[in-house]
């Protein structure tokens, strides 16, 4: 009986949602802001990747919010998983030679790939979040492949705080120099499609990449340490 009632309720809800979706035109732009970004984004920000120009330049403040959310999540996880340092049990089984060597070989390559993605965020697809996640997956590989190896905690904390600070300071300098809004693009735009272009966008993306990478790496570090 209950399942019949819930099924009928589900049907009614589906009907209602599809009725309301039916009224929205599909595949047409309802506002002009998207067209504006596509037309003017390149010349106004100097970034040839329009997505980046939206994420870091037009909506830079939202990106600061996203980074803050990730930061709060990492802090919360550390608070929940906080345990007094267990003494290293010393019975960590060493992995086989092939696995360890393979991980050591792949680790710098994955790091380089992640760094490439966020340094070229204004030219090619991808950016700080994607590059940071790839760097965190390199740390994950080391934790799984070479057991007993740890990335220094103070190092990752320092990188994280410094990159967050760089983001804020660059935004505040923009506010002070441009005087119009936070994260004002005060550096010269440079030539379109070259590495040193788009003003503050590469600096911000490098900061975001380092921050996301060290935060996600820290989360993985906490979890691996907790699971022993």
């Amino acid at each position, binding site marked *: 009986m209950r399942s019949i009632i819930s099924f009928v309720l589900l049907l009614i809800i589906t009907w209602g949602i599809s009725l309301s979706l039916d009224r929205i035109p599909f595949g047409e732009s309802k506002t002009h802001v998207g067209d504006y970004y596509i037309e003017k984004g390149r010349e106004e920000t100097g970034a040839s990747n329009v*997505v980046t120009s939206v994420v870091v330049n037009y909506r830079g403040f939202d990106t600061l919010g996203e980074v803050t959310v990730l930061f709060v999540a990492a802090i919360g996880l550390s608070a929940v998983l906080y345990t007094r340092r267990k003494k290293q049990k010393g019975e960590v089984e060493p992995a086989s030679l092939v696995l360890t060597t393979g991980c050591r070989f792949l680790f710098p390559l994955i790091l380089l790939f992640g760094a490439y*993605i966020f340094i070229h965020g204004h030219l090619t*697809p*991808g*950016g700080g*979040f*994607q590059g940071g*996640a*790839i760097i*965190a*997956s390199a740390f*994950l590989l080391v934790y*799984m492949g070479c057991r007993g190896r740890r990335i220094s905690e103070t190092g990752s904390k320092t990188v994280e705080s410094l990159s967050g600070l760089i983001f804020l300071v660059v935004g505040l300098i923009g506010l002070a120099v441009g005087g119009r809004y936070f994260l004002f693009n005060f550096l010269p735009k440079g030539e379109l499609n070259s590495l040193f272009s788009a003003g503050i966008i590469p600096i911000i993306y490098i900061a975001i990449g380092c921050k996301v990478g060290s935060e*996600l790496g820290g*989360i*993985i570090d906490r*979890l*691996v340490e*907790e*699971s022993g």
Partner: protein
Amino acid sequence: MILIVGALILLMLAAAIAALFFKDLINAVIASCMVSLIAAILFYLLQAPDVAMAEASIGAALVSAIFIIAIRRTQRNEE
């Protein structure tokens, strides 16, 4: 093109249903990892390469690893 996308969507649905019905949790995590991977391929085919990167690295790699770590930490007596 539309055939490839359709086949990938069917495969993704099959993996999602398999993730629901697997008794062993590790198998379920692998199946949900497969859902993320196919979603990444679909994003790439639909010309959203940056979303594809985020989905592949976070959805397929990090989330699966966190799930597996959590499952290893808890009791595993579902077999």
